[in-house]
């Protein structure tokens, strides 16, 4: 019954302490003094049987991962543990702002235009403080004329600037559809490659908390057919900053989709400069039984469902596709080849959504590797109702995800 007690002087990393030898002294024990470990953040993970793991090496705990909260903190240790600085914690909207600010400092041609981005600091405070720092012309408060100021951004991009156009709510960019479809996507081609349009169009979208139908739109499905643009969706502070920076540095027009409900997510991100590749998907949780493809807010519903699924004995692989156009067929393909079962969970409408395109792409490319038809869970083709419960029923909920996985894995 008395298990080996690994004291302060012991060399290797601590694994699990038996519960009966657990006393308060062990908590005060500081691993950094006795082990020559890099100053990696240490995570305390609570197991269901009550024992605690003081885990020093984030890489080592992947096999027995158990997520304590619904929000997946960034598991990928490549940045966290290899950095020599401790990183800093911030919220998603601050990460976006940091990315934008750093790029604005780095390149004086980067500018922002949109409604209330300047003095007001942005409807979700993504541009707070930037006007004071960079001036009213670089962080331009526009009148309410989406089509025209988006076109203005495009004209500015053609003549040498690198603008960021903010839609106060993504839905407002429906008014800019003319410019986004005709000019943003097409001008590089119709000019025979003479003009580049290094513009970033961004804004909050998605279904929020009872914002009503018009403020709850998912424009990714409407824009996905426009040739010549790239679309990415951020979901964590880490990839928000990374994607923002990559988008600003890209010569292509990029639409960055943010989600209204994710702006207050907190995460510790690296201090040093980094970008997230615009065309790559993100492995959130490797697994063996089923591939779940998702993006933006649905990632969190999926991870919540994953907790339940793990308890039930399933091992889902969760991929945040991040790049909505083009799809990262390599990461997705490798996963399909491993698990042979695909579930897509998205917030788009069922008809003509990102999931519909993804289903087609997977079927075309990886048909032979599938053991079951692809299941695509999307929002109902319904204008988002105001009433809370009705709104809940329009988007995919974790319980539906669990049921779908069970169905797939029969």
């Amino acid at each position, binding site marked *: 019954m008395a298990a080996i007690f690994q004291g302060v002087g012991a060399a290797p990393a601590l694994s699990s302490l038996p519960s009966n030898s657990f006393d308060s002294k062990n908590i005060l024990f500081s691993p950094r003094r006795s082990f020559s470990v890099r100053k990696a953040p240490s995570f305390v993970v609570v197991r269901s049987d009550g024992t605690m793991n003081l885990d020093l090496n984030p890489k080592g705990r992947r096999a027995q991962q158990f997520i304590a909260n619904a929000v997946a903190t960034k598991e990928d240790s490549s940045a966290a543990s290899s950095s020599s600085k401790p990183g800093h914690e911030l919220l998603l909207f601050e990460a976006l702002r940091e990315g934008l600010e750093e790029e604005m400092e780095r390149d004086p041609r980067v500018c922002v235009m949109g409604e209330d981005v300047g003095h007001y600091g942005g409807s979700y405070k993504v541009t707070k403080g930037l006007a004071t720092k960079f001036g009213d012309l670089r962080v331009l408060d526009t009148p309410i004329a989406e089509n025209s100021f988006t076109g203005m951004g495009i004209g*500015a991009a053609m003549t040498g*600037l690198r603008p960021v156009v903010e839609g106060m709510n993504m839905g407002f960019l429906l008014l800019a559809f*003319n410019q986004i479809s005709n000019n943003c996507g097409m001008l590089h*081609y119709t000019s025979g490659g003479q003009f580049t349009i290094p513009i970033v169009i961004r804004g909050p979208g998605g279904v929020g908390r009872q914002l009503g139908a018009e403020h709850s739109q998912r424009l990714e499905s409407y824009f996905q057919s426009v040739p010549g643009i790239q679309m990415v969706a951020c979901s964590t502070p880490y990839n928000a900053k990374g994607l923002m920076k990559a988008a600003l540095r890209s010569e292509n027009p990029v639409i960055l989709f943010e989600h209204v409900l994710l702006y207050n997510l907190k995460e510790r991100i690296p201090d040093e400069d980094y970008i997230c590749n615009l065309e790559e998907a993100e492995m959130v949780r490797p697994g063996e039984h089923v591939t779940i493809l998702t993006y933006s807010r649905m990632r969190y519903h999926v991870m919540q469902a994953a907790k339940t699924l793990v308890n039930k004995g399933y091992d889902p692989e969760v991929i945040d596709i991040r790049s909505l156009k083009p799809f990262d067929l390599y990461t997705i393909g490798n996963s399909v080849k491993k698990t042979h079962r695909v579930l897509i969970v998205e917030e788009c409408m069922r008809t003509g959504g990102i999931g519909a395109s993804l289903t087609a792409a997977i079927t075309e490319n990886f048909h032979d590797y599938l053991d079951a038809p692809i299941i695509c869970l999307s929002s109902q083709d319904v204008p988002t109702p105001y009433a809370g419960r009705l709104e809940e029923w329009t988007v995919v909920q974790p319980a539906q995800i669990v049921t779908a996985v069970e169905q797939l894995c029969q």
Partner: protein
Amino acid sequence: MILGRAFEDMCAQMYYRGKMFGFVHLYNGQEAVSTGFIKLLKQQDSVVSTYRDHVHALSKGVPARAVMSELFGKTTGCCRGQGGSMHMFSREHNLLGGFAFIGEGIPVATGAAFTSKYKREVLKEADCDHVTLAFFGDGTCNNGQFFECLNMAALWKLPIVFVVENNLWAIGMSHLRATSDPQIYKKGPAFGMPGIHVDGMDVLKVREVAKDAIGRARRGEGPTLVECETYRFRGHSLADPDELRDPAEKAHYAARDPITALKKYLIENSLASEADLKAIDKKIDEVVEDAVEFADESPVPSQSQLLENVFADPKGFGIGPDGRYRCEDPKFTEGTAHV
């Protein structure tokens, strides 16, 4: 102006001979506006036009050969054959298009003017006084983008001149039937900029007004709205039978042909002789003939051109199932890949 007229006439010929297709909109009759304004610009100034853009391109300095090749859809065209009649672009001459939907070029012009102001005030390029001209028609003046851009240009005092080529007709819709107040120049002061009306059939009058407006913009005093009363001698496009317009109206404006008027002025004021003018005519004919020959002999785009220029950074096509970027697949350079 002669180049514009001769070129457009040749376009009509070539169209009916099956050398160019689609929608081709000719500028005959309106040459005074293009010449009057664009000839005052420097190379770094920008011009934004609509689908009726051949002569704007020529005035701005795009070689006739490049424009004709583009119309023939050849790879030597100014846009490599990818744009066509309605999408003339030239980076070298700062011609920012060529837009098919009316009104969608005006915000782009506003953006170019914004860049000019940005360069001067943020990037501290103190001598940057580039001006942008936005050309569009009477039909566009009822479009939201027109008003939105008048507002923004006046608000930020952008170096832009809005040039309305009021030829009284938007395809078959008479300006008077479409507009509550047909005097477009009056709409300028409503937004805080001068609104000027000028006889668009007289190139010297247009030039005087243009000098003022462009000068204003260069000095940083803000935008101007100039309404040029002009007329198109042909139909809206080569597909338009042009049956609606009253022959009396056409005759009235034909009598005010800008080229004839200028020729008369030059001769009456002894600034040129008949022989000089004939020499110009001949020279222009040669230029246009040469342009047609060049375009005829130019190669048609090969399939490898299909997927180029979709993205400035072709990584935008994404990562394929094999882990490589799709643009590295040789089928992309051949143009046979499926995107």
